[in-house]
């Protein structure tokens, strides 16, 4: 990792101007840190760092040549995006899991054939979107749109979210705010929920990846994001209606 990578995401661009906005105020501190080959997958602050296109291309080429460490770097960098895409299309846990696995299996077979490896995130997002639409059409397991559909509240293999909330000191303090944000998110239009669910993947996707995930023009991602966040802010009552 080189330090300029932290500038690659629009949402991280303000880190230097507003330290503390991100958990990784230390994000710039990971420059030069080895972040690949972490297997089994390890969760630490480095997972927040987006993969720069040049880095993605390097990882893709290395993986195509048989480097499993590079492959794991891709898994670390883009799993959050792939999962978010499946969730944005309101798939159940089981269906989202199938879409996620299919996207990665398909990438494994295509890895040496991808024309623009620097856009591998967008390739994965597109693949996940198409697979999600197939599954949504074919499955009887699709759950209807409601305020919880974009987040799963019932992972069998994860701690319950309620417990996760209680476990976190930060969450205990923010509990009320979290609930309000949660409710407000569910009141947004379907389009806003889809866009935001993809945007808030960890690490943050770039706009090209978000556009690929939702089949929308790259140029409309920024304005739509601003509009949706403003709506959300209104719904949470943090700004007056006149703003």
């Amino acid at each position: 990792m080189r330090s300029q990578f932290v500038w690659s995401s629009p949402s991280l661009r303000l880190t230097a101007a507003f330290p503390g906005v991100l958990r990784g105020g230390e994000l710039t501190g990971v420059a030069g840190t080895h972040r690949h080959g972490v297997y089994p997958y390890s969760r630490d602050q480095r997972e927040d760092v987006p993969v720069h296109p040049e880095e993605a291309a390097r990882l893709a080429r290395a993986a195509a040549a048989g480097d499993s460490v590079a492959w794991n770097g891709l898994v670390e960098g883009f799993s959050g995006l792939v999962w978010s895409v499946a969730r944005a299309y309101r798939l159940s846990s089981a269906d989202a899991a199938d879409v996620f696995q299919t996207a990665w299996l398909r990438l494994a077979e295509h890895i040496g054939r991808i024309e623009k490896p620097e856009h591998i995130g967008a390739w994965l997002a597109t693949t996940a979107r198409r697979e999600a639409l197939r599954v949504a059409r074919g499955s009887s397991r699709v759950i209807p749109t409601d305020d919880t559909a974009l987040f799963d509240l019932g992972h069998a293999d994860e701690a319950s979210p309620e417990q996760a909330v209680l476990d976190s000191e930060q969450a205990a303090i923010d509990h009320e705010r979290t609930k309000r944000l949660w409710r407000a998110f569910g009141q947004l239009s379907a389009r806003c929920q889809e866009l935001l669910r993809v945007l808030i993947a960890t690490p943050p996707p770039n706009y090209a990846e978000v556009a690929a995930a939702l089949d929308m023009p790259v140029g409309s991602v920024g304005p739509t994001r601003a509009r949706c966040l403003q709506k959300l802010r209104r719904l949470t009552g943090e700004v007056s209606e006149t703003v």
Partner: protein
Amino acid sequence: MTRSLWISGPRGSRAICLEADVQDERDDTELEEGLRRLAARLDPVPTRLLHAAAESFTWRTIDADLAELVFDSLVDQDEAALVRGPEQVRLLSFETGDLAIEVEITGTESARSLIGQLVPPGRAAVEIRQGDDVVAADADELGRFSAGPLRAGPVSLRCSTRPERRRVVTDWVTI
């Protein structure tokens, strides 16, 4: 107080923003980060799936032609033409060069059945892959093969034609 803020863009490009814009962007960024933390806490990628994604790499087939998915009745057929009912039939076509693999999927979520046809027809050793499970289903001289019950989830076929021993692997697809 009126002030401006210089913000570094990618590759050192610079843009000047008015204070109001900076404030808006800061609010948006804070809100987005709040949502990101919420999603990371309430709906993280399940750990078993991260392991599965890492493992996908070991299942790739290097010495075979890739037959890509070119038709799927679920998305490539008019809604009206779809057969609806408990016994939905899904048709999939995979192609590579002059070889096509046509597949028909029927059955319920817990027990899918698969009927396949190689075009042009001919004998082949066929393997149906579902994660670690591999089911053999050899194609007869007319290129027909079948398998089941299969579980719902990602599936891929691997064929080796007889006697040419041409190896073909299909795209993974969720059935």
